[in-house]
């Protein structure tokens, strides 16, 4: 009986499987084998095929496991970096993750919400970037731009709530990175500054657009000055109230007057929240007006430019925090 060499289906180079069965020739010779040898060959062939299959599956599982390990390792590195960054910024990191203590603290709660918002915002901005570079049409761009503008409203709503809980935290800018804090004005960014850095990136602009943006910049500047002056008046008045001291004696008159001064000062502090609210309103209105002036495509570029700029500020902050110190 003729035995033909069966084709090899497994191309692995693993040398631990013996593919050569006894009594088997891969060249053109004719081999005569009897029935018992044939059945032994078949069993062997089947065993070898199963071995090959098992080895192949094992290699695939090993590959998958190694890939998983590597991605976990990357994640771990990222988490360590974030933790380091957060520690350096002096944020409170709870090792027990006590939800009670975190929710009781308005500042921490806001910081967490802001971080979530920022992550989502960056994701959407990257989506927009991708759409722009893949030459998406105006209709598609419009949808993404509008969703981003709506998303801005979210953070202002969150800030309003946070200002009620802890106005000084919002005012301090501690929820932003150090380099961003450099430019902090009344609880956030200065709208006129943002417009200044955008103008050059939006060309070509029509005469009308350029005029409208210049007017917008001026209006924003005027509103900023007005709010700043109101704040200064508040600070001066607060200082005057606290400085108007009487003699240190504990006579009833003095104690009453001291308490009266404190009550007045408390009232003045209470108006800080309104200043933050109006400053945020100015930010929102300025952004909305800007996007009314721009075409869809220009709006998209503006959103991306703003996102890029603040990303760079945050990167600068990281570099600054990681700098070698004596």
């Amino acid at each position, binding site marked *: 009986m003729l035995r033909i060499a069966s084709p090899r289906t497994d191309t692995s180079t693993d040398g631990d499987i013996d593919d050569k069965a006894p009594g088997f020739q891969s060249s053109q010779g004719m081999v005569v084998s009897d029935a018992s040898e044939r059945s032994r060959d078949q069993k062997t062939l089947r065993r070898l095929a199963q071995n090959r299959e098992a080895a192949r599956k094992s290699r695939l599982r090993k590959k998958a496991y190694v890939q998983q390990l590597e991605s976990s390792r990357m994640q771990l590195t990222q988490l360590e970096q974030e933790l380091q960054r957060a520690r350096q910024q002096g944020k409170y990191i709870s090792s027990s993750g006590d939800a009670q203590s975190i929710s009781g603290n308005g500042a921490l709660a806001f910081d967490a919400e802001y971080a979530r918002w920022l992550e989502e915002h960056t994701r959407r901005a990257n989506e927009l970037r991708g759409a722009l570079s893949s030459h998406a049409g105006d209709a598609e761009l419009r949808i993404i731009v509008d969703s981003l503008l709506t998303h801005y409203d979210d953070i202002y709503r969150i800030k309003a709530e946070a200002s009620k809980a802890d106005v000084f935290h919002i005012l301090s800018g501690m929820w932003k990175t150090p380099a961003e804090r450099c430019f902090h004005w009344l609880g956030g960014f200065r709208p006129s500054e943002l417009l200044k850095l955008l103008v050059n990136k939006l060309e070509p602009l029509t005469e009308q657009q350029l005029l409208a943006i210049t*007017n917008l910049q001026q209006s924003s500047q005027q509103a900023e000055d007005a709010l700043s002056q109101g704040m200064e*008046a508040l600070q001066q008045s607060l200082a005057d109230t606290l400085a108007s001291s009487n003699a240190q004696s504990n006579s009833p008159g003095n104690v009453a007057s001291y308490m009266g001064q404190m009550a007045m000062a408390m009232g003045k502090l209470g108006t800080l929240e309104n200043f933050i609210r109006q400053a945020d309103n100015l930010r929102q209105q*300025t952004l909305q*007006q800007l996007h009314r002036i721009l075409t869809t495509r220009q709006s998209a570029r503006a959103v991306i430019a703003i996102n890029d700029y603040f990303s760079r500020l945050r990167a600068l902050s990281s570099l600054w925090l990681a700098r070698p110190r004596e």
Partner: protein
Amino acid sequence: MDKVRDLASKKAAVIFTKSSCFMCHSIKTLFYELGASPAIHELDQVANGREMEYALRRLGCNPSVPAVFIGGNYIGSAKDIISLHVDGSLKDKLIEAKAIWL
């Protein structure tokens, strides 16, 4: 309310304030910056101040001060003024009421 309307009609730009209100200070500053000379009525310094404050609240002004009137019409409080300034309408209204000239 009559008192409020009466005072509001006496000048092209009228702002009701309180001497203790710092947001009022901001809005006044903005008007001066635009070249307007609004009539200022400090509700904590005038007779009928409290009545006028209630009237302004009923008009929908919250907080009651600053309350801005242009050409005799109620325009709004600080938030409204800032919003109108950003989209250019504030200047238009002031020009129309002859509170400022360009």
